[in-house]
């Protein structure tokens, strides 16, 4: 390879890399490339933990994310709702993110209103909305839900909502399903919920790729299962669809698997770029020595 070519490649305008990444992600989307997913133990643990529950059991779905993380966490949230609705669990939604209630409403619209119209708001599911206060909220509602949640997200008195009448605190929940984009999120639920009440609170979580390495140490004692990034979402989605969706799942229920196509091509590009960058680096060093 000529010295001029090496120098040119070493000083390549990074916008060419952006263009390559754009093509690596957009072409699989346009071609609708999909690959089969084989669920790993962590995803299976999440699935099994929900499977253990009985119809009518109470579960807390804490959706601590916003549109910025929708790409990674949206498929997990959808699958959690789909799984719980199929299991006929009582779903209590809340969020520690200001835009979280909108994410909850999106999930409710996408799954419950569309495919489970028989479920009744206030009897089968309730959106308790958002409360500011970060980990302080978790700390309080672990012992007294009404201290902070006097109404639901729609402004309805919590005491007039049938499914909330026998709930004193989060300790009444059989399982916490947390979808987390960062702070406050899964780490805080583990710190102030699960660890503080190890015999009463069990939790599974779906987190972003950035957050996942910080959450793995909590598995399996403090976290029963963990979905890490879009890969975890795709695996769990596969498990839920295989058991509960008859025939071809709707596009809304295949978002995780669908987004693994662009992942594969983009990761191959990343590996190529890392290798190419290192080879160029060593070639440059060699040229400098000559």
């Amino acid at each position, binding site marked *: 390879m000529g010295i001029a070519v090496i120098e040119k490649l070493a000083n390549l305008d990074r*916008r060419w890399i*952006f263009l390559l990444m*754009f093509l690596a*992600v*957009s072409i699989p*989307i*346009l*071609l*609708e490339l999909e690959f089969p997913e084989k669920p790993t133990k962590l995803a299976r643990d999440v699935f099994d933990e929900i499977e253990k529950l009985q119809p009518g059991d109470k579960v807390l779905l804490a959706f601590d994310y916003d549109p*910025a*993380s*929708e*790409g*990674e966490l949206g498929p997990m949230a959808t699958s959690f709702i789909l799984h719980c609705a199929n299991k006929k669990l009582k779903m209590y939604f809340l969020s520690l993110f*200001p835009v979280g209630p909108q994410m909850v409403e999106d999930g409710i*619209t*996408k799954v419950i*209103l*569309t495919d489970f*119209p028989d479920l009744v708001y206030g009897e089968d599911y309730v959106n308790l*909305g*958002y*409360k*500011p*206060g970060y*980990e*302080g909220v978790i700390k309080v509602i672990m012992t007294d839900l009404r201290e902070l949640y*006097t*109404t639901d997200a*729609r*402004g*309805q*008195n919590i*005491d*007039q909502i049938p499914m909330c009448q026998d709930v004193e605190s989060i300790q009444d929940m059989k399982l916490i399903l947390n979808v987390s984009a960062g702070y406050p999120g899964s780490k*805080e639920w*583990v*710190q*102030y919920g*699960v*660890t*503080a009440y190890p015999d009463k609170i069990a939790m599974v979580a779906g987190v972003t*790729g*950035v957050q*996942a*390495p910080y959450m793995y*140490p*909590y598995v399996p*004692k*403090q976290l029963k299962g963990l979905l*890490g*990034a*879009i*890969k975890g979402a795709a695996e769990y989605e596969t498990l839920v669809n295989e058991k509960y969706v008859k025939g071809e799942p709707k596009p809304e229920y295949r978002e995780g698997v669908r*987004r693994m196509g*662009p*992942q594969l091509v*983009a*990761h191959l590009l*990343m590996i190529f770029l890392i290798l190419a960058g290192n080879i160029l680096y060593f070639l440059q060093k060699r040229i400098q020595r000559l």
Partner: protein
Amino acid sequence: MKFEHTILTLFFVLVAAFAIWQSLNDPEKLAGRVYVKQVAGEWVPADEIDRKAGIAEVSLSRSIGLWVGAFFTMFIFSFLYRDNPFYKMAEATVVGVSAGYVMVVGFWTTIIPNLLGKLTPGLIQQWAMPGLSPEQAPGAWVYIFPLVLGIMLMMRLVPKVSWISVWPLAFIIGTTAGLRMVAFLEADFLSQIENSIVPFVVLDKTNSIDYWQSFQNIFLVVSILACLVYFFFSIEHKGAVGKVSRFGIWILMITFGAMFGMTVMGRIALLAIRLEFLFRDWLNLHL
């Protein structure tokens, strides 16, 4: 106008022209439109079956939102080419809308129901929240303290008495530090030590050795100890200590590599959803 501004303007005009053309010529009549249907009195997105059944209709407001969202996505992406007025406008809009949204949500979800609703429940029920109970809970007078602390915090806006805001700030920092210290000690420090105490020889259900799990446990403990040795600077990293420390660095580097890989996966997923939005939801493009 700078050259790059002209290029970007031309690009957006061309994309807009293509999007309009695609909306008018899309055989499925999906591009540039959002279909909705009514379920239990609420308007929800409609799918293909609903459209074929004739119960779906185009929502003008959501369709406008779709176009605004598409152009704002491209405005933000345009920063990858170079900083430009389109990006700045989109960025300023996001910051402004987010700040306003958080303020309003905070007011209606906390100040009203959890502070004023506790102190004067009857008034708040009549004025703002009909769902709230009009009866005051026993001991609700303690909410005067957060009200006073809140007012003191607002004094930050008055330069002459801004020093008053330091007191509630000290209260916030003190309580947060206390809460966090206890939680960290319990959940991370003590529990993580407990999680690291694992058997080196693991037996399976048939009482034979589970070699893979045993290896994992041994590797876990050895890795933790090696990483701890790397951060132990009271002994010079030479000889056996140096070798263990070197192994610790390798473990740390592998961990950082795994973290980088997870971050890349996350970022690509975010890019994928925006491109899905542009190609599918907005333009209904398929190859």
